[in-house]
């Protein structure tokens, strides 16, 4: 990717007060858009549900300053290695990247999910035994 070009395009926008810029040439295609009150685009998918049976998840905005551990696959979420056993982690626990935080069962396979980050568990977002979809937030972590 040509970052030099991108930078120059962004500068050009600032210099000339542009809110949107699209360039397409033999090298590629670029589309830039400035944030700001005037930059709101009304066009495009609205948030309102179009009909009955609507169920598309609206991703919640992440809490500021918190890291999210997300489900890397779809399956059933388990907080402990087996029924009755202690949970892998609890809120308040300090964790490291290698720490197993939960299991996601998919097709009878128990997949151990590692934290892959350092910090303190501040929220467990899913109840034990509940299904999770890809990308769903499992835990929130305050990084040190």
């Amino acid at each position, binding site marked *: 990717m040509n970052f030099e070009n991108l930078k120059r395009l962004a500068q050009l926008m600032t210099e000339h007060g542009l809110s949107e810029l699209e360039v397409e040439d033999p090298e590629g295609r670029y589309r830039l858009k400035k944030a700001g009150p005037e930059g709101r685009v009304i066009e495009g998918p609205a948030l309102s549900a179009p009909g009955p*049976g609507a169920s598309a998840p609206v991703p919640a905005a992440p809490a500021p300053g918190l890291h999210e551990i997300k489900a890397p696959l779809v399956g059933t979420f388990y907080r402990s290695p087996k029924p009755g056993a202690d949970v892998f982690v609890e809120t308040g626990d300090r964790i490291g990247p290698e720490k197993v935080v939960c299991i996601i069962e998919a097709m009878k396979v128990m997949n151990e999910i590692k934290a892959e980050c350092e910090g303190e568990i501040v929220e467990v977002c899913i109840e034990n035994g509940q299904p999770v979809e890809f990308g769903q937030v499992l835990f929130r972590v305050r990084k040190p």
Partner: protein
Amino acid sequence: MPRTDSKTELTPPANERPPMFSRILVANRGEIALRVIRACKELGIETVAVYSEADAGAIYLQYADKSICIGPAPAAKSYLDIARIISTAEITDVQAIHPGYGFLAENSHFAEVCRSCNIQFIGPSPEASRAVGDKVRARALAIELGIPVSPGSDKPVADEKEAVRIAHEIGFPVMIKAAAGGGGRGMRVARNDVSLVSNLYAAQAEAQAAFKDPSVYIEKLVEHPRHVEIQVLGDEYGNLVHLGERDCTTQRRHQKLVEESPSPVLTEDLRRRMGECAVRFARAARYTNAGTVEFLVDDDGNFFFMEMNARIQVEHPVTEMVTGIDLVKEQIRIAAGRPLGYRQEDVRLRGAAIECRINAEDSMDGFRPSPGLIRRFILPGGLGVRVDTHAHAGYTIPPTYDSMIGKLIVHRPSREEALLTMRRALEEFVVEGVQTTIPFFLDLFSNAQFLSSDIDTNFVETYLGKRG
């Protein structure tokens, strides 16, 4: 439009009829996912839609009762990932999976995994799928059943000498084909000994490069071929019918662009004979559910078996229009163990249907894909017009998957009227923000040779060459 109250020969006792599914997972995306959701809604079946991050927020997902994100944009980690789909099926407690077309639709391993997990795969059995999916086995079966195939080597040619011998046996021109092939790669035409030898090496090299397997075989070239395919439906009780043909001769680089039913070149007799061959083939392969047997038809009305596709096809709506039969509902009913409910003589073809595939491609620039935000999207409508699309104004076509954004289908009492309706519908169809194949179709539906259907499978490329 056959009614379900007519009698069939083979049905299970009424008290043994299995119940209809109450929840189905749709293992696909875009218009075919929406197509399956529509069928389920009308059958009173709940649906679970799966989607990748690239499709998050798409409106068609909201028509499903539940939608589950299964992975990131690349299909290998979402729509093609068997474990993720089965896992979703398990957590959502569905009884069956509809695979649509593409992705896992013809993956017999997937069908096997479904079976082992006690989930009904909506399509043929893994055994039937494998039997018809292997080109060499399918061809051998067709020959065994007395179904015409184009003469050829039937197995890879050992060397130049064997190639020449076979070519002389079956007569020039011949086609050299990669055994592992598909999509036109490793395919060469030879019209004499000299070009045969040089093209043999070229084809082997191409085949090696494309498929890591240099094996090629030789077949007699069908000149001026038309692509005509027969839709079949078979239930679990041995009832098999065909629903007439689709003429898919209008192709570009082996991609179908326009499909119609009936074929402008089939006689009633030819339709009957091809239909019988298709049913015979399906029966021998113990095929159930919806499938399509593809043939080439030459100028003299000879037809040659090519292969059988073990899925619902993109172009299934033209068959639905002329028969009145909802093919996706039939797939679901058959998978649930319901008998067909009608016989061959109950199937009637009425009027003429044509479909254009509306792709987000710039037909002025080599059909280069044109993903992005659709700013304005005004659908054609009125008498005789059907549109199947998941797109709408404000929809962003992801660059990750195929470029089809919809299908425009017309149905009128005659082909002549259908052509006129298609042209005016194309003129009404407004898409702004991305390039589409609509301008190409507008040209095509003004071309005298196309309108009179005086074409073969090479027509579009020749036509584009002339136009360019």
